[in-house]
């Protein structure tokens, strides 16, 4: 690990501006780190040629006096759910075997436009379905904070490769996507910052869909400030996504500092769930104290429909997924496993192309949308979703930001909790309500568990008020004094 890989994006940007090192040197340092850490399995596809080309282009721009901004020359990892032109894109699934998109997702195009350098495509749960990065066709990702008790740990999921890469100093930042917690939960497990913006803040164009009404791209970085820089480059209205918000992107990074005086922080009592680990509760209390010390006022709020959120999510997300994944039929791209009849070809292709978890969710989704069950499941879930969103609206009349834990535990071992999907789904208990309401949420590393593993706190804001969320997160970051990274072996 060289010094260059230990920088934040902001520090690296200053170093590049001061010509202390070149974008090529920065990229090479990270490519070396990636090569040395292949054991983590954080990347499905490394793209050194792309990285060096783009780094050279960044250096050339800078030499010509035309540097683009804080991300010009910054090496990042891209979750392999973003379609990248000319670079294989898998969604962690066998069914997209051999698929090379002839187009670029809007978010990665925006990052490219800002000069960011793609190092490779980060591993993830298959089609972003998972909370432990163990469902990828390309194998599980290891949490760089592990092992513990002789067992490798999960990095969380679904953006597990992105989180591991940023945590292990393989990239200065990474793109993630969050449907029910897929940015925030792995950020918590890997001790980094993960921001899920408001639904509609980042375009979904070119991101392989899991659940369209929930999917949202966001940055995964080592500091709150870096998240602000990256989000500014990723976000923006896109006419190619009808659900993208026609709003200007604020200068997030410029407004982070300053007192929290007058800011009201809500503590939802329903999040103090039965059987919550004491250390999670204690960390939450610490978070309140830190924010109070920074000038904010902490008050209790109620989000009464919280207990229905997980069930609601696990109806809506699979329902949309069952339809979104219908296009992987072996007809036009990706895997095709022949059969004697059309139906057999479908069954062979989808049976062999999708893993167990994806098949499970497609089946659940098909079931809840089917005739006779639609009203009882999907329609009712939509109603509850509206109630959950109303809970937040009500709470945000009284407070500006809501503080909760990000996940109910620290990272667990690979292989644990795999026999019972419902226990696995509980990982998302604190992140799912925010997703259902479409609100911005951030996980910021706040402390270590008894086992010395990272724990994050989540801050939730009003729609399109990422600014306040980032500001409060910065206060936690300042107060927490979280270690710079996983202990090096």
């Amino acid at each position: 690990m060289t010094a260059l890989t230990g920088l934040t994006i902001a520090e690296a940007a200053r170093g590049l501006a001061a010509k202390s090192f070149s974008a090529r040197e920065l990229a090479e340092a990270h490519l070396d780190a990636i090569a040395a850490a292949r054991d983590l399995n954080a990347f499905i596809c490394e793209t050194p040629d792309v990285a060096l080309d783009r780094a050279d282009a960044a250096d050339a721009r800078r030499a010509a006096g035309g540097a683009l901004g804080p991300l010009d020359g910054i090496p990042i990892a891209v979750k392999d759910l973003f379609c990248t032109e000319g670079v294989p894109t898998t969604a962690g699934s066998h069914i997209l075997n051999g698929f090379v998109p002839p187009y670029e997702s809007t978010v990665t195009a925006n990052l490219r436009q800002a000069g960011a350098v793609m190092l490779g495509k980060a591993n993830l749960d298959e089609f972003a379905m998972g909370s432990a990065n163990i469902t990828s066709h390309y194998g599980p990702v290891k949490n760089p904070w592990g092992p513990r008790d002789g067992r490798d740990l999960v990095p969380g999921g679904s953006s597990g490769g992105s989180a591991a890469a940023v945590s292990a100093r393989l990239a200065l930042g990474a793109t993630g996507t969050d449907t029910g917690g897929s940015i925030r939960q792995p950020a918590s497990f890997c001790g980094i910052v993960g921001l899920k913006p408001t639904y509609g803040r980042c375009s979904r164009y070119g991101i392989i869909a899991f659940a369209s009404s929930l999917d949202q791209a966001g940055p995964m970085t080592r500091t709150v400030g870096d998240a602000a820089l990256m989000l500014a480059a990723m976000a923006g209205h896109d006419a190619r996504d009808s659900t993208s918000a026609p709003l200007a992107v604020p200068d997030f990074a410029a407004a982070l500092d300053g007192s929290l005086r007058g800011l009201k922080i809500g503590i939802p009592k329903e999040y103090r769930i039965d059987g919550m680990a004491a250390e999670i509760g204690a960390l939450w209390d610490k978070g309140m104290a830190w924010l109070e010390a920074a000038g904010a006022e902490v008050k209790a709020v109620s989000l009464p429909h919280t207990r229905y959120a997980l069930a609601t999510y696990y109806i809506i997300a699979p329902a949309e997924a069952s339809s979104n994944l219908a296009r992987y039929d072996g007809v036009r791209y990706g895997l095709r496993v022949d059969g004697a009849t059309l139906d057999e070809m479908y069954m062979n292709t989808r049976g062999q192309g999708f893993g167990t978890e994806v098949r499970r969710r497609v089946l659940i989704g098909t079931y809840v949308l089917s005739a006779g069950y639609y009203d009882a499941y999907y329609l009712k879930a939509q109603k509850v979703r509206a109630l959950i969103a109303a809970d937040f609206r009500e709470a945000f009349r009284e407070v500006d930001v809501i503080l909760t834990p990000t996940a109910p535990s620290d990272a667990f071992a690979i292989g644990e909790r795999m026999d019972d999907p419902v226990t696995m789904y509980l990982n998302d208990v604190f992140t799912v309500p925010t997703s259902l309401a479409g609100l911005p949420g951030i996980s910021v590393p706040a402390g270590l568990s008894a086992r010395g593993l990272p724990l994050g706190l989540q801050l939730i804001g009003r729609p399109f008020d990422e600014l306040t969320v980032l500001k409060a997160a910065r206060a936690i970051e300042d107060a927490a004094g979280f270690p710079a990274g996983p202990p090096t072996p």
Partner: protein
Amino acid sequence: MTYLIHGETGDWEVVVGLEVHAQVISCAKLFSGAATDFGAEPNTQVSLVDAAFPGMLPVLNRYCIEQAVRTGVGLAAKINLYSVFERKNYFYPDLPAGYQISQYQHPLVGEGVVTIDLKDGSTREIGIERLHVEQDAGKSLHDQDPSRTFVDLNRSGVALMEIVSKPDIRAPEEAGAYLRKLRSIMRYLGTCDGNMEQGSMRCDINVSVRPAGENALRTRAEVKNVNSVRYVMQAIEREAERQVGVYESGGQVVQETRLYDPGKGETRSMRSKEFAHDYRYFPDPDLLPLRLTEAEVDRIRQSLPELPDDKKERFIAEYGLSPYDASVLVAERETADYFEQVAAGRDAKAAANWVITNLFAVLNRKGLGIAESPITPAHLGRLIDLIGNNTISGRLAKDVFDIMADTGGDPVAIVEEKGLKQITDEGAIEAAVVQAIAANPGQAAQFKAGQDKVVGWFVGQVMKLTKGKANPQQVNEILRRKLAE
């Protein structure tokens, strides 16, 4: 006339509702920018959205919505300011996304009405249940290879309007009149070209029968994808007869999808597996609900042209045409425009006669549309003027008309060139009359003996002598005078 099927047990009434899929006239598809031209090379009009590549998202083409609203207004229907696109899920190779984006619970257009014109000059109102907007699927080509099916996605994503009638149709003739009227309205509006052969208008038929006098609806069968007005009428007749047969032999009609085989003149059941779908409709999360404002709808309403029904009424009132002639002339906007140009400042009934009787015959014979007519409205008008001012006789006018049809020439020039101008000179006609009488003393004697009929024979003789150009009225007068001398 009530249409009834006379069965062995009594008379049966036919109850029909039609679902018409009309392709929206627009340059681009409903949710992508790909082109929509008919007959292009396979898979040359396909965007990544139409082929459902990973991460591709639909973006609504507002022009298609405007076209559908225009159609809704033309059907005197309620325009819903709030409507929702939903996904209709099923697997088929020519449906790339595995779902069709359609409207289900909240269609763009609600109830409306189509007034149909029947042969006896009467009209009937057929209710419209709804109109919704959806995308078309691609085309599976089963005949290109012995073992494989090829897929052409050119049509995938093209905007369709599904127009659902109420079960108000009671006869095959009414179904034909309904389809023709619907097509006529959409052509006036420029929202669908109504070309059934090219598939830009397709029809599913819901048919049931019931004993005459019974009020409740019985089980219906759906005859899918019938592609001409004539076949629609035949299919209804055959399917209704089949159902009467089923009931009368003690059976029950089952709700099912059937196909019409025009060769055999019968409908037959599709294997149930092919349509045993649970479409799992749900609102498409990639698209926001469609919201229109009253102002937008009003703007479209204001921009509507005069529609066939209004035009028909005006033709009756303004030109004194019969309801039948008026309905024939307004069926196509181009025909109505043509007629109005001919009729301007002239005898409108004569103009209507020339267009309906003579021009239509020529166009039919030559297989041309009115837009390609070799006879311009100005020329036809001039021909009528030549008759009106006695330059040519009605009989000669028909000859001139035939020349016009073949050459596209100006009737004034044709009359001049061929020397067809009517002879109205008293002296010239008298000379011919005298010649005819002198050559036929026997017939002249018959006249004197009181046989008046022989005058007609003499007219023919005079016409022969003048090559048909003599003014017939003058010939008649002069003949009578001279014969009486």
